[in-house]
């Protein structure tokens, strides 16, 4: 995705028009690279045909890792490596291990989720994300269309389709 440099950018003023526009543009066979909005627009993911994120599965697995790590650590420390009598309890007694297990489960699930999200979204230190149109952080909805994967259509066709779909502007955007 980094190698693609030439885009057409459609600007939409209103989220209702945008939602209908997304469907119209996709009906015409145009593949949408991404849509940037200043606020969450309900129904946009469905309109763009995005699949459900698998992040919750990753979170569950990270959590499970935390649970087993915490239990292993405590059982090894207090039961095997350096057994100590605390309050007359067994060396390995589950109830006092639960708070630590809970905390490590939450910690690893949270950190793991953030890390996974950053990697999947290609966000990393010193990486400057592409700005298709700065107004997407203000009051405009911005639809980016990658010319390299829409080879069956000319850029003029795409601009016309965007205008018909309700875009107030359709601009070229090149990253060099």
């Amino acid at each position, binding site marked *: 995705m980094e190698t693609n440099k030439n885009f057409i950018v459609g600007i939409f003023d209103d989220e*209702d028009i945008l939602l209908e526009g997304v469907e119209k543009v996709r009906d015409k066979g145009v593949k949408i690279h991404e849509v940037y909005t200043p606020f969450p627009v*309900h*129904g946009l993911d469905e309109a763009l045909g995005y699949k459900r994120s698998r992040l919750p599965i990753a979170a569950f697995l990270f959590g499970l890792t935390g649970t087993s790590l915490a239990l292993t650590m405590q059982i090894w420390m207090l039961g095997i490596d350096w057994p100590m009598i605390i309050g*007359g309890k067994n060396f390995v007694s589950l*109830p*006092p291990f*639960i*708070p630590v297990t809970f905390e490590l489960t939450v910690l690893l699930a949270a950190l793991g989720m953030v890390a996974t999200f950053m990697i999947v979204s290609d966000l990393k230190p010193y990486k400057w994300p592409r700005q298709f149109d700065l107004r997407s952080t203000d009051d405009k909805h911005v639809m980016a269309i990658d010319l390299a994967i829409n080879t069956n259509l000319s850029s003029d066709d795409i601009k016309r389709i965007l205008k018909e779909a309700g875009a107030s502007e359709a601009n070229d955007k090149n990253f060099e």
Partner: protein
Amino acid sequence: MGHHITVESEQYIFKAETKKKLFILIAAGLVLFAIGVFMAMTSDHGGHEGHAAISKTEMLASAEPAQVGHAEGEHHGSANWVKRIYTSLWMNNIYFVGLGIVGLFFVCIQYAAQAGWSSGLKRVPLAMGRWIPIAALLTIGLWFLVKGDLFHWTHHDVYEGANADKLLTKKSPYFFWPLHAGSFPLFYFVRMVLFFGLWYWFFLAIKKKMEAEDLDGSTTHWYKSRSLSAWFLVFFGVSSSVAAWDWVMSIDAHWFSTMFGWYVFASWWVTGLAFIVYVVVKLKEAGYLKIVNSNHLHDLGKFCFAFSVFWTYIWFSQFLLIYYANIPEETVYFIERMRVAPYNWIFYLNLFLNFVFPFLLLMTRDAKRHMSMLKVVAPIIMIGHWFDFYNMITPGVMQYGGGFGLLEIGLFMIFLGTFVYVVLNGLSKLPLVGKNHPMLQESLHHHI
């Protein structure tokens, strides 16, 4: 997305067919109860006593030396099977008292939080509140019936003579003020009447506002309901805790836990949520509540999931502190519940039904959005918390002589059938959807 969606008015019809099913449930419950009572009567003469007596002595010797003198008031108690009936009556009553007030609590939380998503389904929890007056009569009536066997502290002889119970004497003003210890527990009784009176008053006031809103559509009713709700929540915060101490914790009168008010509340609340989910799903299956979609179910499912975890948190907080401090007068509570059947298997079953199952089954988004899964998990939670209340109340009364069988199951079915009848009958009295709720459009556009 500013478009306006119009809502069809819906009216729930309490069909004769549904009534028949409930009557069959109640009748089956009566039959099982009768068989259970008969079995309990005949087994009373068997070898139960010896076992119970040994275990009790062992327990008391190890944990509550101060008490051996009068051995939990055994000498003036009813026969074992009668105590079993009383215990079961009281625990079922407390369980359903909770379902009733939690219905009102749910409505009030929605108003106080100015929630829009739930405005289409508020009539279901409101209908649960119709149990409050019945619960009031049952609780007050049953209290006089069972107090001798359930509430050890009501016996006057524990406060008299050389063997007077020091702990109970110190606690006695909480029950008997302004009268003297061992007479009529006026303070306790006034609290009971006051709680039910005010809960019912708040229920009637909010129901009245809803009815008025249906007629004239003015938003003033919503504002009035919101301030009523805020007052109710303050009152409920105090009264639910005190009710839990009075009606449940005082059975184990020597023992106390500062978590107990929350513990009972958590149990009531998640049971109520599961009941709301179940009724909403059933109504949808019958073609009602068209405006409730998978987004609303998702929120209800999240409520069930979250408060199952909340209950577990409270359960564990109570358990860990007592386990770790290891003070005999505290640990006796769990020793009683972990050593002997049926309490020991119920103790662990409780954690599976109320934590492991809801946690794993409701974890995914799809599970919370689909009626097929909610329909399975909601009854698990409701049955799980019934067992929770069983283990809160029975061991304190029956010690090691408690039983679990047709008697308890039958009585639960009678209570359940009656409760559902009252709720559905109440549901048919008002329109199923408050058409003039100022936040109805928000609920219709709810999307998560």
